[in-house]
C-alpha cells in the first residue's frame, strides 16, 4: 500500500486530530467487553426462546458493531463524504436482504424427501452424486 503524505494540518484539522487521538478508546473497549459478556450469558439464558434470543443478541451485536464503527473506524470524526459512500452501500445491502426474502420464506417440502420421491428417469441418468469430501484423504 502506498503511503499518503498528509499535509501539515491547519489549526482546525489539528484540533480535530487532537480530539481523535484522545478519544475514549479504553472506555469503548470496556463497553465492548461488557456487551460481549452480556451476549454470552443472554445466549445461555434464552437459548430455548428463539425470538427473544435473536432480537436480544442482534441488538447487542449491532450496538457493538456501531461502537467499533463510530469510535474505532472514526465515523465520529469523519466528514459527510464517508456517509455518501456508506449510505448507498447499506441501502443496497438492505435491498439484497429483502430480495432474498422470498427464498427465506421458501420452506422445505417434506413430500420431496428422497424416500417419498419416486425415482425419475433423470435421477437414474444422473446416478450417484459426486462427493466433495476432500478430508477423506486424511483418513486414508
Amino acid at each position: 500500500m502506498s503511503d499518503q503524505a498528509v499535509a501539515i494540518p491547519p489549526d482546525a484539522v489539528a484540533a480535530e486530530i487532537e480530539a481523535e487521538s484522545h478519544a475514549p478508546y479504553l472506555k469503548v473497549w470496556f463497553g465492548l467487553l461488557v456487551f460481549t459478556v452480556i451476549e454470552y450469558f443472554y445466549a445461555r439464558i434464552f437459548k430455548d426462546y428463539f425470538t427473544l434470543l435473536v432480537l436480544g443478541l442482534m441488538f447487542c451485536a449491532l450496538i457493538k458493531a456501531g461502537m467499533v464503527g463510530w469510535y474505532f473506524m472514526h465515523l465520529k470524526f469523519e466528514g459527510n463524504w464517508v456517509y455518501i459512500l456508506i449510505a448507498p452501500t447499506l441501502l443496497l445491502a438492505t435491498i439484497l436482504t429483502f430480495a432474498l426474502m422470498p427464498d427465506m420464506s421458501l420452506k422445505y417440502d417434506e413430500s420431496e424427501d428422497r424416500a417419498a420421491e419416486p425415482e425419475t428417469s433423470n435421477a437414474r441418468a444422473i446416478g450417484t452424486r459426486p462427493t466433495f469430501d476432500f478430508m477423506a484423504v486424511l483418513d486414508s
Partner: protein
Amino acid sequence: MAHADVSTTPASTGHGRSTDHKHPITPGKVAMWVFLATEVMFFTGLIGSYIVLRAGSSARGYSNLYAPTTNIAEVEGATGILITSLGGGSAEAVAEAVGHATGQTPEQVERIIAAVPHGVVGGLSHGHAKALIDRLSALGAKAVPEELVIHGWPKPYDHLTNPLSIDLTALNTFVLICSSVTMVLALSAIQENKKSKCSAYLLATVVIGGAFVGVQVYEYYQLMIGHHYPVGISATGHFRPSVSIFASCFFTMTGFHGAHVSAGVIAMIAVFLQSLTGKYNKANYATIENVGLYWHFVDLVWIILFTIVYLV
C-alpha cells in the same frame, strides 16, 4: 504520491460528530472505504445465503440420534441410548456389547465409543435400549435412555447436534476486539508523533490478531480431525464441510472471515516493520489509518458472524 487535500473551515473541538469542518481526506482512505463497501456487500451476500439455507432447511434435518442426512420419517419410532462414561468397563467389551445389540459395523461402533461422553446409539426399540443399558451397566459403563429430539437447525449448547464451542469463541471474539483497541491506539500514538509507542501497539495488534487466527486454526483442527463427535453432528464422527448444510455454512462463513483476518495480519506485519524504519510520523500516517480501517472492519464483521453462526 500526491499530498492529501486538506481543506478546513472553522472547527469545534467537541466530542460530538463534527459537521462544520473536515477531517483530512486522502485518496487512499477513500479507496479503502470504497473497498469496504464492496466487502459489506460480500458479507451481506454470505449472511443472506446462510439465512436462506437455514430457513429452507427441513424442520427434521437434525436430531440427537441420527446423522444429519438421515430421513427421520423412516426411523421415527425408534429410540436410543447415550453412553456418558466407560467407567470401569473396557472399551473393547463395551464396543462388543454395542455391536452385538445394534448389528453395526466395527467402524461405526468405534465412532460411538470415541464420542463418549456423548456416545449415541440410535435405532433401538425401547426393549433393546433397556437391555443394552443393563448390559453396559454390568460392564461398569454408564448409559442413559435418549429419546429422539428433532431440530430444524443445530441448537447452540446442544452437544448432540452442535459441535461449536461457544466458550472458546466468545473468548476469541474478545481477543479480536482487544486487537482493534491496540490498532486504534497505534494510530492515536502516531498522531501524537510517539513512534516507539506506535510500533509497540502495532506489534501487539499483530500478536493478538495472530492469536485469533491461531485459535481458529485450533478450532478447525478439533472440529475436522482432533475430536470425535456423536452421530447427530456427523455420520463420520468429524465435523467437516461435507457432513451437513450447517457445516458447509459454518466453514464458508468463518473461513472467508479467517482469510480476511489472515490477510490483515500479513498487512499489519508489513506496516509494523515499516514503522521500525521511522517511516511514519504525525504528518505521515495514512497507511496505518487505512490498514486500521480494514482491521476494524473484520472485527465488526466477526461481531455479527459470532452472533449469527454461534449464538443463534
